[in-house]
């Protein structure tokens, strides 16, 4: 199933998107509330819900976006969020302003946990009906108009990468590296025209200077030594496999990114979503930057008759 990266939307964008979804499932009379104290409401709808079981009454819409990958509605922090909403819901019910409560979130929604949450809200507030819409529901509500309005198009196709090799590579590298920088290697980037590479790949100057040069560059020599060690031949092969897979994805699935560094973000998120157990997360970025600097990913200036 396609999964959109709602995680990249701002909170305001996410709330706006949820209200847009409600305009299509409840009706055009859905009213959005602006930022600020919302009293437990990001939007409301009064009337007959045209595409939502034909319910009639007062709907309250609430959006709760998380920035955490792989978050679930059964996570303790979401249960806490719900607990904090309960007094607000109760108060709206008592005032006669709420019959149906709709909570949208970009968290995964497990069936059993969902029912427990709903029962808990109903029991403590007396609200008529409660719906919690998780990631799966949000994905199914996405149509072309929403995808284009919230610029979710580039994430429509799943990357389907297999970071197993990268994980082994990172673990082995971390185990064997000594963190000693060999001064002979520090200026290796000058070996080819990196500015040309940045230009043809649309890598922003700020990212290159502030992130790659200032931090990652200091450890590139360690990766060199690690990969060049004959005992690590197996890992050298893994590196080749991983970098060629990423390269292919960059040219096939990530064509629409504005700046090249966005590729790093998308790949990083995808790797972490598949392997959340990777502890040394900074090494994922380090290896991605190393691949770029070594022309294993991205367009290579070789095409422009430059050696890389």
């Amino acid at each position, binding site marked *: 199933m396609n999964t959109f990266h709602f995680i990249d939307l701002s909170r305001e964008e996410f709330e706006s998107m949820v209200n847009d979804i409600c305009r299509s499932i409840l009706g055009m009379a859905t009213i959005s509330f602006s930022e600020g104290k919302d009293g437990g409401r990001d939007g409301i709808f009064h009337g007959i819900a045209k595409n939502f079981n034909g319910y009639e009454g007062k709907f309250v819409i609430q959006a709760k976006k998380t920035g955490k990958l792989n978050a679930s509605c059964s996570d303790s922090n979401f249960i806490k969020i719900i607990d904090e909403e309960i007094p607000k819901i109760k108060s709206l019910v008592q005032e006669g302003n709420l019959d149906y409560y709709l909570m949208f979130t970009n968290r995964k929604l497990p069936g059993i946990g969902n029912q427990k949450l709903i029962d808990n809200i109903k029991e403590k507030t007396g609200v008529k009906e409660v719906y919690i819409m998780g990631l799966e529901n949000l994905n199914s509500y996405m149509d072309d108009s929403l995808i284009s309005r919230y610029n979710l198009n580039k994430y429509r196709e799943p990357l389907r990468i297999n970071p197993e090799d990268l994980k082994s590579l990172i673990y082995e590298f971390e185990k064997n590296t000594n963190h000693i920088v060999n001064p002979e290697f520090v200026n290796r980037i000058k070996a080819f025209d990196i500015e040309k590479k940045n230009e043809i790949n649309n890598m922003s100057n700020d990212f290159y200077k502030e992130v790659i040069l200032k931090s990652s560059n200091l450890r590139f020599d360690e990766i060199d030594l690690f*990969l*060049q*060690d*004959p*005992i690590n*031949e197996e890992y*050298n092969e893994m590196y*080749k496999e991983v970098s060629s897979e990423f390269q292919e994805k960059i040219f096939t699935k990530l064509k629409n990114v504005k700046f090249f560094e966005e590729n790093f973000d998308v790949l990083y998120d995808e790797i972490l979503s598949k392997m959340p157990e990777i502890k040394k997360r900074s090494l994922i970025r380090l290896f991605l930057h190393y691949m770029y600097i*070594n022309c*294993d990913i991205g367009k290579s200036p070789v095409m422009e008759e430059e050696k890389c």
Partner: protein
Amino acid sequence: MLIPQKHMNLELSTIRVTSVLIELFKKNKIVSYDFTLKYLESILGRKARYVFIDSLNILFLMGKVEYDIKKDSIIYIEK
């Protein structure tokens, strides 16, 4: 094993290691296994031991060396 790769240290490639072994065998027709390995490490460093067997295999397959099991030595075959 024989194909050069982008991320490899050419000094520790099988071709380079094999060339060092040939130099040794040309000067000494019979060399003990232990001495051969120590000699190699003295020239190319300890990491060369991981390529040592591969290089001996190449020389054996090319008919350039034989192994004397009784003396635990490498015999260079000059043709």
